[in-house]
């Protein structure tokens, strides 16, 4: 469908309404021949009109809606999930109108929504769930006699589903409805259901085999507790203990997690936290602050099998991570360290004797979860400016990370997590001067890490090479000011190896390496040392980067190279030979990758800003002939003209003009923005006149035309209606999605053309 039909924009509102009605009127009558997707579109369109324009309120319009929905519920169409979803959504939106409840009842939509509460499509289930919730809430707030009792019957139906349905998915959806209802109208719900019965039922469901159902029931328990804190019949701690004793440790711990997630301040005594970390303490054999023997035994018993042990430990680690994210220290650092050792093949320490080692050894999920927790711990300590909280096991944990990182057959995702952990660890060490001899082991750890990183930069898996080179970049970015780290990078050739990764066979690694080179080049010591060791000049480096921009087969790498050039340009680095840089950037305007082209335009934007805002050209541009003109004092408009002339001579202007006609909308938009800004400045400086369009019918110059002169450029921007272009190019799919009027414009325009017997297929 054409999205750039400007003619339609001139249609008046009555015309629009007539066309809209005609379109929607046709839908029920032609439903049998309409494509399903067109039908879905029509229903969704109605939904958008309701949501955004408060339309479809008149009896005539309601008739259209009724007819459409009735047709949609016919078996053939109703089997399509997108139809069901669109209808439920439309009806939910319609409920904002008075009397819409009657329409919903008339259409028997309540029955349909209840049926769809366990639909194979999650989207349909979600929209049905929302419709039922909305129906109940609307019924409660609608005081008309005819509909005021509907919510009671609906709640009763939901209650029946909960009590007697064998459909687990449906029950879970009903629980979600109750959760939403408790948030909105808890008092009404509590009037309709017996609290005790309700809690007993939830209790039963928490203990059931279905993880989804037990989770939703547990969550509903929490919602209930929050809605009704005075109800002493629900003692959450007792509930959790009961769950543990009845062998549902994982549900109990999930409940604790939910409590922590929802930050129940009234449970400040921290018992959920104690429960949650207990499995970790048990598997690690570090008996700190044990629970009552009953709970302890229950947890220990539950993790005596591998699958249960893994599940419970996973929940426990998830909870600890959650706490750490909230900035709370669950005091489990030492246990976490032990757990990591338990999972590691290479570990030679006492953990070999743990009975849980056979369950946890080389379990990637547990390893990753534990590493995420460790990362959060390091972040926590990093944010703690006092530094008091750093545990004794810090160096030990870092040592573990470095040792494990050296293991050859490590999973790539684990390597990535380990590197993520090591970054804050090194920062932490620097912050607290651990790199000095205060802790003797630390230099050894760093040394070992250097050797390991060297190898990882040449790893068999590109993912590992990528994450390692990225790690080196981040270290350099955040810690290169530290002398020890700076020396460490140079000692272990991490800078030269990162440069070598720019030539890697895998594009992601090349892209990562280019970003790292950007960070490395910011530190003069490291950067100069790299060039000396590799025996290359800055020109060689720039030339290599430009070669990547021009010849690399992958967009990622080209994008990263453009970013690097931009960064160097921004930082005022020596981008020599600059003419080669400009030439490459002009050529990159024709790249196949739209993100590369956007990068190039950003580069030109920076150049324009720099040239137009400064009195003098950047230092690296002194070799340009045009720069000579800056040396003398010239009139202001002449000076501006010279600057524009320079932009033309380096290819910036022709690149922008070329990009205005690019096949990518985002590129066109960016080019329009830049040209609009440039045009405005030209107007300000009197280079072009307002409202004086050139009458030249020559085509616009293209990128292939070298040496575009200033007059040609100025003529071109005068001929371009940049405002219209910018408006057109600013439209996105979302704008059509959220604002169907423009889409209707298109439809109307195409219809008008039909009438005029001038049919142009807009599809």
């Amino acid at each position, binding site marked *: 469908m054409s999205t750039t039909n400007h003619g339609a924009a001139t249609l008046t509102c009555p015309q629009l309404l007539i066309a809209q009605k005609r379109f929607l009127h046709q839908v029920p009558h032609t439903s049998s021949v309409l494509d399903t997707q067109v039908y879905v579109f029509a229903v969704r369109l109605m939904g958008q009109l309701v949501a955004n324009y408060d339309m479809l309120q008149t009896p005539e319009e309601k008739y259209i809606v009724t007819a459409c929905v009735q047709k949609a519920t016919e078996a053939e169409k109703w089997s399509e999930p997108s139809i069901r979803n669109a209808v439920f959504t439309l009806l939910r939106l319609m409920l904002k109108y008075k009397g819409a409840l009657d329409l919903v009842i008339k259409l028997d939509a309540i029955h349909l929504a209840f049926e769809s509460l366990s639909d194979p499509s999650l989207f349909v289930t979600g929209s049905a769930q929302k419709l039922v919730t909305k129906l109940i809430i609307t019924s409660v707030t609608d005081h008309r006699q005819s509909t005021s009792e509907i919510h009671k019957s609906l709640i009763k139906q939901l209650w029946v589903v909960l009590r007697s349905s064998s459909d687990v998915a449906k029950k879970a959806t009903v629980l979600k409805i109750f959760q939403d209802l408790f948030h909105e109208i808890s008092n009404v719900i509590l009037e309709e259901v017996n609290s005790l019965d309700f809690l007993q039922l939830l209790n039963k469901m928490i203990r059931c085999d279905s993880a989804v159902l037990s989770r939703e029931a547990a969550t509903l328990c929490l919602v209930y507790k929050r809605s009704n804190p005075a109800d002493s019949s629900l003692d959450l701690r007792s509930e959790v203990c009961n769950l543990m004793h009845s062998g549902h440790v994982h549900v109990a711990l999930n409940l604790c997690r939910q409590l922590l997630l929802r930050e129940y301040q009234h449970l400040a005594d921290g018992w959920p936290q104690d429960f949650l970390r207990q499995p970790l303490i048990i598997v690690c054999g570090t008996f700190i602050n044990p629970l009552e023997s009953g709970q302890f035994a229950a947890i220990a018993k539950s993790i005596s099998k591998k699958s249960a042990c893994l599940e419970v430990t996973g929940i426990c680690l998830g909870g600890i991570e959650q706490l750490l994210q909230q900035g709370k220290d669950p005091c489990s650092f030492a246990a976490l360290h032990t757990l990591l050792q338990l999972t590691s093949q290479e570990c030679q320490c006492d953990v070999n004797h743990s009975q849980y080692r056979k369950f946890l050894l080389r379990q990637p999920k547990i390893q990753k979860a534990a590493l995420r927790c460790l990362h959060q711990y390091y972040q926590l300590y990093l944010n703690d400016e006092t530094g008091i909280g750093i545990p004794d096991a810090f160096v030990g944990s870092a040592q573990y990370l470095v040792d494990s990182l050296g293991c050859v057959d490590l999973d790539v995702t684990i390597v990535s997590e380990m590197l993520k952990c090591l970054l804050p660890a090194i920062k932490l060490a620097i912050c607290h001067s651990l790199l000095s001899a205060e802790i003797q082991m630390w230099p050894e750890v760093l040394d070992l890490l250097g050797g390991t990183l060297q190898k990882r930069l040449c790893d068999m898996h590109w993912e590992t090479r990528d994450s390692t080179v990225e790690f080196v970049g981040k270290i350099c970015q955040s810690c290169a000011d530290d002398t020890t780290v700076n020396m460490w990078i140079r000692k272990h050739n991490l800078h030269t190896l990162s440069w070598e990764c720019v030539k890697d066979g895998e594009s992601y690694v*090349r892209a990562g390496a280019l970003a790292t080179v950007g960070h490395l080049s910011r530190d003069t010591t490291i950067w100069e040392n790299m060039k000396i060791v590799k025996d290359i000049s800055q020109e060689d480096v720039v030339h290599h980067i430009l070669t990547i921009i021009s010849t690399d087969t992958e967009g990622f790498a080209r994008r990263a190279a453009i970013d690097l050039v931009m960064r160097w340009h921004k930082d005022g680095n020596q981008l020599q030979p600059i003419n080669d840089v400009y030439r490459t950037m002009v050529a990159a305007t024709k790249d196949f990758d739209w993100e590369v082209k956007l990068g190039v335009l950003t580069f030109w934007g920076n150049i324009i800003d720099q040239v137009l805002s400064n009195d003098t050209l950047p230092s690296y541009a002194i070799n340009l002939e045009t720069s000579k003109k800056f040396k003398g004092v010239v009139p202001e408009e002449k000076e501006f003209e010279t600057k524009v002339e320079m932009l033309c001579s380096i290819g910036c202007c022709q690149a922008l003009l070329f990009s205005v006609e690019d096949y990518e909308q985002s590129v066109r938009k960016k080019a329009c923005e830049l040209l609009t800004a440039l045009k405005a400045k030209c107007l300000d400086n009197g280079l072009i006149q307002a409202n004086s369009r050139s009458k030249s019918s020559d085509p616009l110059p293209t990128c292939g035309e070298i040496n575009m002169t200033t007059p040609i450029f100025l003529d071109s921007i005068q001929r371009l209606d940049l405002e219209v272009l910018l408006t057109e190019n600013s439209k996105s799919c979302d704008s059509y999605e959220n604002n169907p009027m423009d889409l209707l414009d298109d439809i109307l325009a195409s219809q008008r053309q039909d009438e005029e017997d001038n049919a142009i297929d807009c599809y």
Partner: protein
Amino acid sequence: MKLYCLSGEPSKPCFILKFKTTTIMLDSGLDMGSLLNFLPVPLVHSSRLSSLKKWKPNDYRGSGKIENELRACGTNVFVDSAPEFTLPQLDILDLSEVDVILLSNSYSTLALPYVTEYSGFKGMIYATEPTLQGGRQLMEELVHYVERMPKGSTANVWKNADILRCLPAPIKDAANPLAWKQCYSLHDVNSSLAKVQMVGFNEKLTVFGAVTVTASSSGYCIGSCNWSIQSDYEKICYVAASSTLTTHPQPMEHSPLRNSDVMIMSQLTRTPTVNPDAMIGEFCMTTALTLRNGGNVLVPCYPSGVTYDLFECLSVHMDSCGLSQVPMFFISPVADSSLAYSNIFAEWLSQGKKSKVYLPEAPFPHAELVNTGRLKHYPGIHGPFSDEFRSPCVMFTGHPSLRFGDVVHFIELWGKSSGNTIIFTETDFPYLYALAPFQPLLMKAVHCPIDTSLNFGQANKLIRDLKPRHLVISERYSHPPALHPHRNDLVIETDPKTIMYKPGSVLNLPIKRTYERVEIEPELAASLVPTEVKPGVAVAMVAGTLVTKDNKHVLKAPSDPKSKVDGLESGRRYYVWGELDMQEFVSKLAQHGITDVKVEDSAAGHIVHLPSDDTLIQIEEGSTHIICEGNEGLRVRLKDILLQCLSKL
């Protein structure tokens, strides 16, 4: 049945099996560990090696001139002489008695010339074609390296026990150096290998009619096999170097090895604590790291086997790291034939590689690497190599012992730079001792042992699967390796049926031969009249002459027709069988005038009472008693009547 264990090193096996009048040698491995006690033989004169200090024991008072025999390098002492090898204990028995030698892979063939030449050996040698060609390449390379720079003198004085005990470790721990032998000649190699008869997998070969030997794929290297030695009623399996990993050779076959009476297992991995996959990764990583730092990589290797996998994995990794422009050199006197042969042995390769032939493509990527010039191979460093050589590069060359071959030259060349790396992948030699005569060495040394043969876990699983009645293993496999004394998982799980051997031991294998197959001549078989004694079982009397020839037994019709007649007419005995039908017996008695008969059932059978004759007949399964108060005539009559009621044969 006896098993002679001639080798002291389980990874270089050599057994002799005496079974059913045949003498079978299983493999002929050559232990080259002794090489490490010798000084390297450089390709060009090395002033460093020649200036090494001469060494003699402080309190040596002996008469032999030892001054020129030993040289010291650091704390180690090396023999300055032509290198020597530790042979299997071939003097345990007369090699001329060996009927057949079964070779399982090319690495277990290296002692073959010592066995077959000048020993009176006149038997057969069976091996697959790749084993033969691979063995030939290994031997030719060995001979070439040793003969290329011959040492003028041979050192023997140091082998004297009085001197030996004064030497520092590890040379003083050398086992029986007097038995060490210098390398064979190319003539001996050719002569020995000329005796080899090529076999295919699962091809049945008869050894003097006594046993059938069959090779089945062992998955270790191209053409490597395990052997099953089978008589009609006994089965012995010899499991040599085998691998269950997926590499280039045809996968290991399990079914031919199942349910054997005895399984002899050898050549398990020498690096049980490391995973070959991880080591390949380490190898590739280290190589890429060295190259990215501008250094050269030296890989001491054999000309076949794992080297092919290294080419494949490394080239892929180098591509991935953007190092495709770095050349790989493969220098060996047999490099050309090794690369060429590997690609024509498609039927001996894994399914993946085999299927490439139909595309058509070369099974191994090294063919493509050679074509594109990324892998360059040369017989030696002289000649065209010097024109093509450029640095940095990856150099694959022999010998892994670092005592001879082109590798010695490259260590001398690159050893002074810490940017270069030597990577050890072969497991035959402890790498630190191999490097000892080159110290001090700045070049980085990395150990990435890649041994794809069975580890202990895999071997135990295999044993459980194959279920042999008796298992024969080296006693070394029954306890953890010396470096890992607490790793109880690094052993073969033994039970009372496990038999362990030590070097030089002779084992009596617990197999009792109970049956022997005999064939009946068709003419004689046609004359037989089988009688069915129970469903599916028929018996017949037969008389004939047993003829044994070439370990085959044939029952022929008697040569004298008269004796046949006599045998049938006069000398024939009848055998009665079957169950007595009491009704028939009573009726027969009545026919013979004995009518007063009472039959009672008893727990064991029947009791027949003849009151008028005061006689009792107890009929039980397998026995009949007639109690007739001494009336012999009646007893005989009753016996005859009873026999008439039974079936005859």
